[in-house]
């Protein structure tokens, strides 16, 4: 056993060296017009060697290390607690949600403008993640091109306002419905596909939408994007310093208060908040309705679901359409917040980030998804000094999370009837 361990440990250490030393230890630098090779800093080399030694020692004493780790008293005292009673859990959850909404309502009046703006972005991601949660978490359909529907919502508003002067409030339902229509259209070919084929087709679809937006220069402005997207108005009151559209009045003049640019930011935040709450409630309701049950049934076992008389077509299409609908919502708010959109906001990485939010939060769990959206959006802002390592850490976190806690931060718990032991 010991000899085997030694061999294995040595092998692992060598592999560590092989995969890190050539890439980290030598830097390709351009000097004048040619490429030359430079040795890395001594500290890097030492780091690489140290990593190999650590891997070697860990693998050599793997059994001991893991064994002693297991013998440690549980680090997390809650790990072995009994699952909370359902009625209590529900109460706690709804109290927490209410608290969050109240906190979110107070937030813009205590936080700085930048923080409010960031919070708006968080809310947009919450909407997106909740929508994708329906498709991936509940229906179990892996959608890697979700960003396409987001783009459809954003571009619908941008184009409608540019060509027809349509305001935010009219564009909001149109954008969402159009995105839902795209979801429906994509849903049809996808119906026959299973699992990973579905993933690649949705990915392809997302790319197609982005490339088309980029190429149809005469309609969408191509890479130049569309600017001058109007802000939402409140019953015909604009929040800008000057009124841009005739017939509108300005907010600060109507109420006779000094102009402040914060009004606009706060107003947009509140709209996003209301929409996010609507999204959360709507999906919560849907989850408890027969269609929500059908999604989960399909995710768990397609054949069993079919044999129980569920129409696979209808169930899959409804999931796709509803997921896309909320992405359209989020897209419209995003366009309005940015005032300018271009295809580069809708790349594959964006889809991957939304998917990561859903997975990190716990597939199917609304609470978890909301927390994950907050974490994923805010952490990079807090860790600006580490911004170079941001994506590296993000990737590593995705892997580690899957390895250690695949069910997510707050796994979904279904509402169920508990049997009480007989007295």
């Amino acid at each position, binding site marked *: 056993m010991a000899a085997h361990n030694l061999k294995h440990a040595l092998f692992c250490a060598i592999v560590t060296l092989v995969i890190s030393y050539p890439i980290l230890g030598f830097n390709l630098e351009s000097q004048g017009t040619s490429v030359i090779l430079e040795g890395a800093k001594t500290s890097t080399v030492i780091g690489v060697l140290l990593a190999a030694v650590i891997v070697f020692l860990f693998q050599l004493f793997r059994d001991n290390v893991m064994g002693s780790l297991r013998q440690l008293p549980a680090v997390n005292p809650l790990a072995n607690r009994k699952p909370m009673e359902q009625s209590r859990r529900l109460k706690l959850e709804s109290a927490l949600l209410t608290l969050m909404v109240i906190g979110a309502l107070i937030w813009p009046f205590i936080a700085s403008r930048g923080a409010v703006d960031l919070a708006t972005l968080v809310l947009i991601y919450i909407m997106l993640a909740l929508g994708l949660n329906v498709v991936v978490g509940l229906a179990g359909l892996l959608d890697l091109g979700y960003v396409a529907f987001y783009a459809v919502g954003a571009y619908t508003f941008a184009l409608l306002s540019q060509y027809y002067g349509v305001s935010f409030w009219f564009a909001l339902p149109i954008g969402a419905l159009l995105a839902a229509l795209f979801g429906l259209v994509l849903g049809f070919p996808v119906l026959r596909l299973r699992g990973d084929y579905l993933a*690649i087709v949705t990915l392809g679809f997302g790319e197609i939408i982005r490339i088309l937006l980029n190429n149809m220069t005469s309609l969408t402005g191509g890479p130049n994007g569309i600017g001058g997207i109007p802000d939402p108005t409140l019953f015909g009151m604009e929040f800008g310093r000057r009124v841009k559209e005739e017939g509108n009045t300005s907010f600060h003049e109507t109420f006779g208060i000094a102009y402040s640019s914060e009004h606009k930011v706060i107003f947009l935040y509140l709209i996003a908040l209301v929409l996010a709450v609507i999204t959360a409630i709507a999906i919560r309701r849907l989850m408890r309705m027969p269609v929500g049950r059908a999604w989960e049934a399909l995710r768990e076992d397609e054949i069993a679901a079919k044999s129980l008389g569920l129409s696979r077509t209808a169930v899959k299409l409804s999931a796709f359409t509803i997921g896309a609908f909320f992405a359209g919502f989020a897209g419209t708010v995003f366009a309005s917040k940015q005032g300018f959109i271009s295809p580069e906001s809708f790349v594959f990485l964006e889809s991957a980030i939304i998917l*990561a939010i859903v997975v990190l939060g716990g597939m199917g769990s609304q609470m978890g998804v909301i927390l994950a959206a907050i974490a994923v959006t805010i952490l990079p802002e807090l860790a600006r000094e580490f911004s*170079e390592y941001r994506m590296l850490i993000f*990737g590593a976190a995705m*892997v580690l999370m899957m390895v250690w806690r695949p069910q997510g931060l707050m796994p979904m718990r279904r509402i169920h009837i508990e049997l009480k032991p007989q007295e």
Partner: protein
Amino acid sequence: MQDLLYFIQQLINGLTIGSTYALIAIGYTMVYGIIGMINFAHGEIYMIGAYTSLIAITGLAALGIAWLPLVLIVALICAMIVSSSMGWAVERVAYRPVRGKHRLIPLISAIGMSIFLQNYVHLAQGSRNIGFPDLIEGGFRFGAADSFQTSISYIQITIFITTLVCMTILSLFISRSRIGRACRAVSQDLGMANLLGIDTNRIISATFVIGAALAAVAGLLLGMYYGSIDPLFGFIAGLKAFTAAVLGGIGSIPGAMLGGLILGVAESMTSGYLSGEYKDVVSFGLLILILLFKPTGLLGKPEVEKI
């Protein structure tokens, strides 16, 4: 005549690209065939292969070694070793612990690995495009000297031949060798293979190592053919190769070859006769269309739903 020469030229361009897609697609298809997961990080392994071979070539040049066959062989071996080790390590760290879990979990782990590796190289080597030396120059030309000539360069020929050789060796390996037989057994029924005394963990590792080695070959060849590399180019190529694998029927090695060639030719014809802007639209559109009529790809086995 000129139109025909033009067509042939675009066909050659397409087949060259297509055969490299096929080389990368093998990695996807083998892994999928055996454990039924998409190794999203495979494109990055190909990119790392290209970086390693460039590091080796530059290093040899600094040492004053310029004999071409030696340079190519050393670069190839270095790239294969590093890529294979990477493939082995990725499987060990990111995929083995999540094997057998819900199928979304390995996939997300793979996407995370892909992002991680991309940024690993990005941080180590910078995000710049780095030029790749032009080691194999020249080629043949056909057609009248004063009008359009069809040309085929030595590097294009090298790519064709290497791909064919690799494919043949791989097919023989899978059908004849002991490990190959074990591979097929594992892909048919992992549990049963295990019961019959096959070290399935070892076979799965071997699959990753073989796929990564082929990706390294593609990395060196394409680095020379295109002329520059950057940390992002693996992802794009990986996406295309994966599309090729799905197109041909994921899990099938001849399917990967066929899918790669079709995709390459479709792209080159779109650029040649329509516009380069739409080549990605055409390749993804083609994929959707084929899957509509053959949901398991061109040469894929129809999935039987087991209850």
